[in-house]
């Protein structure tokens, strides 16, 4: 499966640094267009801050709508990075190599984006500081740490800081490489950033040992982040459909499902845009799709448990909610769409090797998954609030306003924009990992068969 291919290091450098050393033609127009969308989005956010949340469709009793859904969605996407780079590093999966950097990057930028949503959703973002930070010594007002709304920023802040540092440490050897390939101010920049990297055994050993250690440390953080996000909902016993003990692992595995799918989408784009056919190969898509089949099926199992135990109590309000979610228009339409896109269409397709190694099909199916996973979050958050309950005297069906949709679109443009900006200065595929895989793989002859093999260091 892992077809070994000898790649010259000079060629590897030239190809993988093509984003930094010579700018592709499409880069500038794309960045400018995305930049415009980003500007429009920021303008709309400013208008909303000025006018207040009245410009959104949020109204009693649905206070958590598109913003919170999209927040959960982006936190979910952020689980791609550590899943790919930490778990696969610890399990020594050789095929992780070309995708680790891009996945970590996706983590950092999607977390940055996710953080924006609760912030603007608060209506008066500047007031958030003293909810979170214990700084208001003068008035003696401190954050309420019993609230998951405090645990959330703490967890996301930890994850963001950790991922950024992890990304930087793994970037060091490649910064050294860029320093060697550039001149002028760029050379000066990379010299400073690479901290004087030389590539002696001590430094490489720190890369390996440190990489494993950081992976092992990041993994528990990764699990905690989406668990804590899920507790935003799960600990509220008053809203039907939220108060379930399974929420934490259910959210985590859903996040892995959507995050790894997002990595597939991104890998296809990277292969097409930067013409990295030699590095991002069909067998990488094949391996990711196999992983996705397992993750998606596990996620389906959790969905099943969630639903089973919602009905298990046989409480009338809970049953009414599930009926609304699955059988009443428009929720039923969304529900069917959700199930089809998150599982029923992509996973059976991935069972065929022909699909798994077809990059265009993988691209589209991975996008389908993320449509489905966004809808999943929407269907968890909104119906529980929108259901007509006794003693509520006003209710309206929640309909996201154009302001919300614009900000929603902004978030996608913003993440892409940041990624492209990053790609101008730093390589998206880790060069040293790519070269390492050349050193650490070999073919062995077993009888007449040539079998790909991996060099494992003696311990």
């Amino acid at each position, binding site marked *: 499966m892992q077809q070994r291919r000898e790649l010259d290091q000079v060629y590897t450098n030239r190809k993988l640094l093509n984003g930094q050393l010579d700018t592709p033609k499409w880069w500038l127009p794309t960045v400018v267009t995305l930049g415009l969308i980003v500007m429009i989005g920021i303008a709309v956010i400013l208008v909303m801050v000025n006018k207040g949340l009245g410009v959104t469709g949020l109204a009693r009793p649905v206070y958590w709508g598109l913003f919170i859904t999209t927040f959960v969605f982006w936190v979910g996407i952020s689980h791609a990075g550590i899943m790919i780079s930490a778990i696969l590093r610890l399990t020594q999966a050789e095929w992780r190599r070309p995708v680790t950097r891009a996945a970590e990057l996706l983590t950092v930028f999607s977390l940055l984006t996710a953080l924006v949503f609760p912030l603007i959703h608060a209506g008066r973002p500047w007031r958030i500081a003293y909810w979170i930070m214990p700084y208001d010594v003068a008035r003696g007002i401190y954050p309420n740490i019993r609230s998951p709304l405090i645990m959330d920023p703490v967890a996301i802040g930890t994850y963001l800081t950790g991922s950024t540092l992890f990304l930087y440490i793994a970037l060091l050897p490649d910064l050294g490489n860029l320093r060697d390939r550039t001149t002028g101010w760029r050379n000066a920049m990379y010299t400073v950033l690479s901290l004087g990297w030389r590539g002696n055994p001590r430094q490489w050993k720190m890369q390996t040992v440190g990489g494993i250690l950081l992976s092992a440390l990041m993994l528990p953080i990764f699990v905690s982040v989406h668990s804590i996000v899920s507790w935003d909902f*799960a600990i509220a*016993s008053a809203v039907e459909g939220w108060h379930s*003990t399974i929420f934490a*692992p259910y959210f985590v595995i859903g996040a892995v499902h959507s995050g790894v799918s997002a990595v597939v989408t991104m890998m296809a784009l990277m292969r097409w845009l930067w013409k990295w056919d030699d590095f991002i190969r069909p067998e990488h898509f094949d391996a990711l799709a196999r992983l996705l089949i397992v993750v998606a099926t596990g996620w389906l199992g959790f969905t099943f448990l969630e639903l089973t*135990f919602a009905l298990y109590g046989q409480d009338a309000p809970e049953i009414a909610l599930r009926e609304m979610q699955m059988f009443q228009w428009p929720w039923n339409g969304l529900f069917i769409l959700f199930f089809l896109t998150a599982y029923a269409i992509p996973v059976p397709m991935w069972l065929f090797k022909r699909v798994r190694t077809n990059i265009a099909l993988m691209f589209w199916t991975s996008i389908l998954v993320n449509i489905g996973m966004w809808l999943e979050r929407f269907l968890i958050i909104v119906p529980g609030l929108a259901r007509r309950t006794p003693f509520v005297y006003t209710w309206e069906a929640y309909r996201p306003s154009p302001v919300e949709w614009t900000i929603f679109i902004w978030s996608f443009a913003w993440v892409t924009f940041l990624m492209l900006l990053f790609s101008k200065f730093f390589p998206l595929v880790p060069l040293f990992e790519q070269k390492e895989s050349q050193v650490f793989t070999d073919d*062995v002859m077993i009888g007449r068969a040539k*079998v790909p093999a991996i*060099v*494992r260091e*003696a311990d």
Partner: protein
Amino acid sequence: MASETVAAGHEATDHHAPPPQVAAEVIARELVATTIGASGRFKAWAWILGALSIAGIVALILKFIDQGDDSTKWGYVAAMVSFLLSVAGGAPMVSMAPVVAKANWVRPVTRIASIFSFAGIATVIMLIPLVAILPPLVTEGARRRTVWYIAPDYSPHFWTTLGLVLLLLTGIMLFYSAALPDFASMRDHSTGWRQRLGKRLARGWVGTDVQWRTLRMRIGMFGTFYFLILVFVNFLISTDFGQSLVPGWRDAIFPMYHTVSGFQAGVAAVVIALYFSRKYMKLEKYVHLDAFWSLGRLLFALTLLWIYFFYSSFIVFWYGRSANDIATLELLIKGPMIYAFIGGLVLMWFVPWWILIWNKVRRGTGAMVVGSFIILIGLLLDRIRTFVPAWSVPPERIHEKWLTVIPDTYWPTVFDVLIIVGGISMVAVIVMLMTRVIPVLSVWQVQEFNLLAKPIKYIKGHATLVAKPD
């Protein structure tokens, strides 16, 4: 790539060379020879454990005659069913790892893991009286809350029995389908009844290409079935024999928690069995420390997963503060089983976590086996703290919205102690006796391990070249 240009003579680094390879025919001969004869100590232990198993079965029968009409007295038997399902059901999952992860280290371990399938007999024996005592879905005209919304009254009884028997059969099939080549080895290298048994069970195995391909397909197929049935049985045991007996206990993660802690116990059991067979059958040549290292990491990960699942469930109840949240916490944690809970928490998570976190421990065998024993004791306590209070709830309270009266601590009687000891002994003695029937390490997989992993000199250093066939 692997250079041999310069002869050895460079200054040794702190690395030692990987263990040397053993010729295939030596492997077959030596491993087949391990089945023959037994030391006095082995026989003595087998007799003792066998006697304890029989005492356990007798106690189970007597308990059924004496207390067969009072379900509140059966908590410890339910805990044992769950415990034995975890150990004997979880262990064979270790033998599925190579199929999933293509890991080489696991090949010598698969046999010992799949032998545990036979210990499933102990689980079935324990289940028989319990099924008879489990209340039907509808009692006194009212239906209790279960996952069987509109199913017939005796659905849990039927499906759990069927599931557990199927699990036993699939486990044995999984074992047998991977053991065919080894029965052929016994036919070729053993004597007496073992040779005759090998001849009969090898079913004409000679190792043609088609036979190997079918073998791999069978292992994959039975492995998948086994996994699915295992998850299904875990789901049924944890809901029908636990949760649904307590009004208001609604814990969606509990079946998963039950399954994952089952895997944890299964891995721990495999470590223990591997340790003893390696030590007393002198298999150091075949079971490398690499296997313990990898099992240790797996066990460590499962230990962390246990606390994660536990906390995920606990925090929701703790924050919820509704009447049934409070009652559930009271019943399962703070109330009658507080000591078992603390013991479980400490022994399932805290102690193993601190033992297994050290690289040095996972590179060795001694502390690993201690950690595994601790995990098994912790699991037993954890099963007791969930199942005993659940069964202590009198059936007449089953239709309440939530539990209003927390039952008292139910301490084990002499019968219960005998049943617990007997159940554990039965697993041990079954595994021990199976090692006399078939090599405890899979001959062909040890050979394959040697074929695929070759110690090499990499320029000047030592390394292992591991082939990864498709």
